[in-house]
Each structure stands twice: as structure tokens, then as C-alpha cells.
């Protein structure tokens, strides 16, 4: 009886209702587990309570609390609102912003248990991931993103006032279309300052003097038949920084006809796109991390008697829904659920660390039985992205459990072919194929600016390096080239090239700009 009373005293809350005092108390309890016991390293949090309408609002502009205005957000809002009101979709329980402090939106309709779950998930799971994953560290600046968005919003609305809403809209339309081709995929050097620039120049001259050899000068020049070694072309490419895969960056810097403010808008869209790039590369891991963290925290809260059995059941119910993965032939199947996959892999990791089988020791010799689940998790969260994470950690046991199989879809054949299944001979292949599915570089067409006809009509030439024989979808491509031409101000052409044979597979001839933006 006394034990019962004691455990009751430890309870954080009973019942479904919540208030600010309770939210704070529960947050502190979660923080104790997450930071003191698990050693997580999240950003400080700011919990914001919003209504469901505000959640809908937040949906429409990429989940960001403040954003410039554009009709496409209105379009998404109109659609989301209709789906929501017709009961076709529910709302997310939370939205979390990669910022410092980390903003977590929680909905007023949620029960106290759901608020607990959401805080554990977002304010500790996601937040830890944002703060520690190397992609986020390299590409995003959590301290200043909100300030930057505020600047962007003001800048765009000032432009609307000064140059007219439709002029701004045209630039934004084109920029949004190119958004996924507005990221630097590899980190660049820091911008150099002028002193360093002079230093570099001197050094280059010194190197040329030292390595000068008259012998080279007398070598006959190669005939420039194939174009690749045309010195003019090389010089031009070098001066324009070609080839360039970041189309927005290229246009911002090189498009001849754009006004200053138009370049700035391209830059804004590009920076936003760059900010979201890590999120697109780490969906499975990010959700996996957050789900794993909330699962651990909720279990711990229950173990220590801080939440009731009823609350724990409610949590399990919600959790099970979140990590549900239907089979491919199930009516509910719509691809692989990133929550389920991420959570599944991380739970497997825990098992491999704590109770490995012989198979695990063969597959994961360096971590099997190391008894340091948390450390292993944290390393994974910090140093991988979806593709490498799956390639490294998807275990044969999970593949068996999920009965994963890989299907080859070759449009030249009438039938699909099962390439590999969850058996000893297929594990590696299935794993490789699944990892590749999460490789954005494979997923998105590799399109580069290769040349500009500076002597002639200033035509911008693009090249699509075709992967696996997959050509671009034509209707979209035509619209995209129109957008590119509008920004560039002169005709644009695109060739699709097989990278192995350098054969041209398809060409889109000069697409003229439809309107002059400048």
C-alpha cells in the first residue's frame, strides 16, 4: 500500500488534460532522462502551443514560422485544408524547426500524453539530430535561420512594393522550379578575403616561374577537332566556373540580364533550398532518431513510475501507428515509411550491441556486442546520412523480418524482374538497392550548365548526364527550360548524354525566353 502511494507521488500527471505548469514539469522530467541519463545534446527548446488552424497555416509554407509570400503556398494550403476538412488526412502532431532555440509546435487538441510524446520526439530527438548530424553542421546555420527568413520575407515584400507583385512572382516561380537544382552538393571553400586573394595570385605566379619549361612551349598544339581541348572553350568554361550543377547559383552570378533584386531573390530561394537539403538527405535517420528517442524516454518514464499504465498504453497506440509499415500489396502501401525504417534499424542496432548472434558478429564485427548502444546510436546519428546509414546498418535480420525484396524495372522488358530477396545471397544486393533509393544524387537528374555561346547568341547550354538510361519527363522539362530561359534572358538548350559513351540521347533545341524579366 505504501509502495502504491509512493509511486503515485512520482506520477507527473494523470488524465488527459494539460496546462502550462504540467507541460513544464513534464519537459523537465524528459530533459532529465534525455540529457542527464542518455547524454543527448539538443538545442535549448522553445515550445509553442498552436491551434489546428495554425498548424494548417504552418504546413503551407514549408513548415516555417515565417516565410515570404507566394501563390504556390496558397495552393498547398487550399489543398491541405480541403483534405483535412473532408477528413482525408489528419494533421501532424508536431512541427519542429531546425533553429536555435529549437522551435517545437504542439497542438492544443493533444492530450497530455501526446504532448509528452511530442516533446520527447521533437524537442529532444529531432533537436539532438539537428545539432549533431554532420550534414546539418556543414550546411545549416541554426542560430541565424529565423533572422534570415525574416530578412527574406521583408525583402520580398519590399520588392513587391517597388517592382510590382507580378514581377516578383515571375522570378519566384522560376526560382522555385529550379529549387532542387539550387544546392551545392559538396562543401566549398570559405569565401576568401582580399588579402588571401593577392597572396594566392603571387603564389601561382611563383609556381609558374619555377615550373617553366621551354620544352612544353615547343610542343605542337593538338588539333581542336573534338572540341574538348579547344583552348577558347576551356578558358571560357574556367572563367564562367563551368561545368556548374547549381543552376540557381550559376544564374544568380552569371545571368546577364537580371537586375540586382532579382539576383537577390534567386539567392534567397537558393539559400532556403540549401537549408532544407540536409533534411531531404536524412529523412529516415532524422525520424528514426526522433522515434527512437521518444520510445526510450517514454519507456523510461513508465519504468520510473512517472506516467500511468493508461498513459503508456495511449503512447504505445500512437507509437504503433507511427511505425506501421504495410506490405507492398497492401491497399495502404505508399512506399517505405521512414519512421518505421529508421526506428527498425536503430532497434536492431541496439540488439546487435547488446545481444548479438553469430550472424551479427559476421556482419557488424566492430560493433556487435560492444554493449554501448547509446554511443553507437550517437555515432550513427552524427556521421551518416540516409544512404550511408542504410548501407552500413541495415541488418539481415530486419530484411528478413520485413521480407524486403528488390525489383528491377527495365522499361525495355515486358515484365519486372525480382533481382534479390531476403536470403543469404540477396542481403547485400537488397541493401545496396535500398540505400541507392535514398541517394538524392541518383534520384534527381544530374543537370549541369556546360557552356555559354558567348560569341554568338548567348545561348545557355545544359547537359543531362543520363543515369540508368532514364531520360527527363518531357512536359516538365519544356516548362523548366522556359523558366530557365526567362531567367537567363537568351535561348536555352539541353542535351541528354549517356555518360559512358558520350552519345547524345535526346536534345531540346533552343527554348526562347517567353518574357523579359529585366
Amino acid at each position: 500500500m505504501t509502495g502504491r502511494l509512493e509511486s503515485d507521488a512520482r506520477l507527473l500527471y494523470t488524465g488527459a488534460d494539460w496546462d502550462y505548469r504540467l507541460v513544464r514539469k513534464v519537459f523537465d522530467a524528459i530533459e532529465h532522462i534525455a540529457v542527464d541519463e542518455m547524454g543527448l545534446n539538443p538545442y535549448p527548446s522553445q515550445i509553442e502551443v498552436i491551434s489546428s488552424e495554425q498548424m494548417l497555416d504552418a504546413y503551407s509554407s514549408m513548415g516555417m514560422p515565417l516565410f515570404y509570400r507566394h501563390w504556390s503556398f496558397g495552393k498547398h494550403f487550399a489543398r491541405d485544408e480541403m483534405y483535412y476538412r473532408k477528413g482525408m488526412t489528419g494533421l501532424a502532431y508536431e512541427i519542429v524547426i531546425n533553429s536555435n532555440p529549437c522551435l517545437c509546435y504542439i497542438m492544443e487538441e493533444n492530450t497530455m500524453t501526446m504532448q509528452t510524446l511530442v516533446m520527447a520526439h521533437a524537442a529532444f530527438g529531432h533537436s539532438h539530430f539537428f545539432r549533431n548530424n554532420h550534414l546539418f553542421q556543414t550546411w545549416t546555420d541554426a542560430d541565424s535561420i529565423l533572422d534570415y527568413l525574416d530578412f527574406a520575407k521583408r525583402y520580398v515584400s519590399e520588392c513587391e512594393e517597388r517592382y510590382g507583385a507580378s514581377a516578383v512572382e515571375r522570378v519566384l516561380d522560376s526560382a522555385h522550379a529550379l529549387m532542387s537544382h539550387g544546392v551545392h552538393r559538396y562543401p566549398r571553400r570559405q569565401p576568401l578575403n582580399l588579402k588571401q586573394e593577392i597572396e594566392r595570385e603571387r603564389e601561382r605566379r611563383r609556381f609558374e616561374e619555377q615550373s617553366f619549361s621551354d620544352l612544353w612551349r615547343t610542343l605542337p598544339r593538338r588539333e581542336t577537332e573534338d572540341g574538348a581541348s579547344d583552348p577558347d572553350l576551356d578558358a571560357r568554361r574556367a572563367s564562367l566556373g563551368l561545368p556548374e550543377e547549381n543552376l540557381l547559383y550559376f544564374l544568380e552570378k552569371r545571368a546577364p540580364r537580371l537586375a540586382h533584386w532579382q539576383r537577390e531573390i534567386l539567392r534567397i530561394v537558393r539559400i532556403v533550398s540549401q537549408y532544407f537539403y540536409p533534411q531531404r538527405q536524412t529523412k529516415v535517420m532524422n525520424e528514426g532518431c526522433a522515434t527512437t528517442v521518444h520510445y526510450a524516454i517514454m519507456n523510461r518514464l513508465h519504468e520510473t513510475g512517472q506516467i500511468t499504465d493508461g498513459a503508456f498504453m495511449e503512447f504505445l497506440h500512437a507509437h504503433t501507428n507511427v511505425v506501421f509499415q504495410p506490405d507492398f500489396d497492401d491497399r495502404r502501401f505508399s512506399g517505405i515509411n521512414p519512421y518505421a525504417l529508421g526506428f527498425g534499424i536503430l532497434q536492431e542496432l541496439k540488439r546487435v550491441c547488446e545481444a548479438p548472434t553469430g550472424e551479427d558478429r559476421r556482419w557488424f564485427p566492430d560493433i556487435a556486442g560492444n554493449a554501448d548502444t547509446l554511443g553507437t546510436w550517437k555515432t550513427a546519428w552524427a556521421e551518416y546520412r540516409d544512404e550511408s546509414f542504410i548501407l552500413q546498418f541495415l541488418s539481415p535480420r530486419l530484411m528478413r523480418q520485413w521480407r524486403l525484396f528488390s525489383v528491377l524495372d527495365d522499361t525495355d522488358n515486358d515484365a519486372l524482374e525480382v533481382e534479390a530477396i531476403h536470403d543469404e545471397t540477396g542481403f547485400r544486393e537488397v541493401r545496396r538497392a535500398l540505400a541507392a533509393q535514398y541517394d538524392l544524387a541518383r534520384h534527381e537528374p544530374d543537370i549541369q550548365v556546360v557552356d555559354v555561346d558567348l560569341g554568338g547568341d548567348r545561348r545557355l547550354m545544359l547537359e543531362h548526364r543520363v543515369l540508368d538510361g532514364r531520360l527527363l519527363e518531357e512536359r516538365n522539362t519544356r516548362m523548366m527550360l522556359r523558366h530557365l530561359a526567362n531567367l537567363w534572358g537568351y535561348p536555352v538548350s539541353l542535351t541528354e548524354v549517356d555518360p559512358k559513351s558520350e552519345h547524345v540521347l535526346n536534345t531540346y533545341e533552343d527554348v526562347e525566353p517567353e518574357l523579359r524579366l529585366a
Partner: protein
Amino acid sequence: MVNIVDRRLNPKDKSLANRQRFIRRAKRQILDAVRDISARRRVGEVAQGEEAIRIPSDGLQEPSFRKGADSGIRRHVVPGNKEYRAGDAIPRPDGGGGQGPGGSGGGEGEDEFQFTVSRDEFLDLFFENLELPELARTQLSKVEQQGIQRAGFSASGSPASLNLTRTMRNSLSRRLALHRPKRDEILELDREIDRLERSGKDPEGLRELVRRREALTRRSRLIPYIDPIDLRYNRFVPTPRPISQAVMFCLMDVSGSMTEDMKDLAKRFFMLLYLFLERRYRHVDIVFIRHTHVAQEVDEETFFYSRETGGTLVSPALEEMERVVRERYPPAEWNIYTAQASDGDNTPSDNPLVLRTMEAVILPLCRYFAYIEVGEERGWKAKTPLWEIYERLVAGGHPLALRKVRQRADIFPVFRDLFTPAQLRS
């Protein structure tokens, strides 16, 4: 220390500006869709609530460079293998590699976009179609004044609105059901006890009677005459303020010379008149009368969409209207508005009768009579027979508005006449 912020009181509709931009962007498509809807809606339903509209998505696409589905090789890793082994062939599911084991998702571009416009947005767009001036738009879309109206009874309310009849009825039925002793019953007992006491006989019976009397008094004390649960109050709800009622007669020539376009113009005219009337009157009835050489009251569907053949006589329509008024709409209780749409034809022999009926019967009944003539410009022979007759009536000072309507923008000026205060009319 965690920071908890309540954002619920922040302004809602943060995305309103985006929505307005979207509607402006899709204006042409939305206007087309609204035109279709207003053609489909009944006259009386034009101002009804929100509507899900579907618009083609040209100009609304957000293109991106994406790989097509019809070339090259793709691999899909999916869960839930039941029977397959490596090397098995699976017949390609319908729709290329869209669904099934290849469920790649990520839609291949949408052709249609569906969303909901609110009532206000709908009306705004409807007016836009009619090219209404701003002022009239605000007048029309303004929500009418609210008044208070009785609406049944409630169990709570202010003492002033206590409904005595209901309350007493409840009280009575409760007293009956619980067998509350009647006053007469107790008085009767008193008399009996009195009699027995005085006679001194039957003390046993006396004691019994006294006990019964005590039980009755106790019972009547326990079951109150009026209990709080009996109380009923008159309930009032805010309703649009009743101004009055109106009936709107729609007369239309449906003979073969009226084309679908003309009918569509007429329908818009009727819709707009209805909207105006709805603002002014609590209740608006609509009567549809079509005519060729015979006239007939019909429902809306028949009115707009059924085809009739025959000559053109206007007077039967006027007579039919007079009949309906006589039977159902006494002019003392109803404001009568008439809207007539025609291409202006009439059989010459009928003209004198039309003039007479209008002057003697119809116009005295009507608060207003609007005539719109739809159709082609007639060149040198500008005046149609009907127009000539009506012009004579206008000259005689009758409340009659005449307009030729060739396109939708012509419709509104008719209403300017109709709703300009009398003293401002020239």
C-alpha cells in the same frame, strides 16, 4: 529553462495573403469554373454556401526537372515478399511502373486541382463575371441585419421571458404523475374528520383518517406545486431581420427564336435580381412562367432547359401571371417584382392586348417591372414590337425598366435603375 509560448491568440489566417495570391493567379480558370457552377445552380441557390471547385491546373503547375517513367532502368525495394525468389518475373502492373511493387509515388504531374471557395469568394467571383461596380458588390455581399426571433422554449432564461402556460402545464402533469394530493381531497378529509370528531363514534376510523390526512399533507409538502424543473422560458434566437416578403415573377419567351445564349443571359439576370431581392426581403418566392403562344407556370428546370416550339404571344403570359397572383400572392401581403426576358417578338395582333393588360392589370400589381431584351442588334429596324409598347408605358410614367442586353456586362445597369432611390431617379 524551457520557454513555453502560447501562440493560439496570434492572428489566424497567416496564409490568407498566399491564398489571395493563388486566387489571383488562377483567376481565369476559377472564373470559368464559377461560371459553370452558376449555370448549374438554381436561381434561388446562387448565394448558397461554399463550393468545391475543380480547375485545370495550367499555369498552376510547379514544374521541376524529373526523370520520366518511360525509359531506362529503375530498382524498387519493397517489403512484404510472400512468394517471389530471385529471378522471378512479375507482370508489369497497369499504369507503367506507377503502383504495385513499383509504387514509386511522387505524382507525375496533376491535371486538375480541386479546392473550396467560401461563399464570399464565390459571390465575389460571380459578380466579377457580371462586371458589377464595386459599390453594388459590397451592398450585395453584406450580411443582412440580425433581429431576434422566438424559437421554441428552453429550460433556462431570464425571469422576464418565463412562459407561464408551458410552466403550468409541466407543473400540472408532474403533479398528476406523482399523485400530489389535490386541495379538495384534503378539504374533504378535514370535513370527514370534523364530522367524526363531533359525533365521537368510530375512534378507530378517526385515527385512520387523521393518519391519512397527515400523509397527504406531508406528500403535498414534498411534491411542490411548482418545481424548478417545470420552468419553461421563451427562447429567442438571432435571425435575419424580417423586412417583408416578395415574389419574383420570371417571364420568358421560350419560342424557337430564343437561343441558349440568350437564355443564359436571362438566367444571369434573374439570378442577380434574386440576389438583390434576397437582400431586401426576408422571404423571396420565385415563379417561373414561360410562354410561346401559350403560357404556363413551370419549375425552374423546365423553364431554362426544355425546348418549346410555337408562335409568340405575350399576353397569355401576363394573364397567367395575373392568375397566379390572384390565387397565391395577394398584393397586399406581397411585394411583386417581375422580370421579363424576351427577344422582343410578338404577334402584331396581340400588341393592343398586351398594352391593355400591362396598363390595367400587371403594372398596378407590381412594385417594379424589368424588361430585358436579349439578342442581336437589329440594325436599322432597331425597335421590336414589345419594346415599342413598353416604351409607350414608360412615357406614361409607369415603373418599368427597359434594357437591351447583348452581353453580360449590360445586365447590371438595369439594376442601377431598379435600386436607385426614387428621388435620385431623374
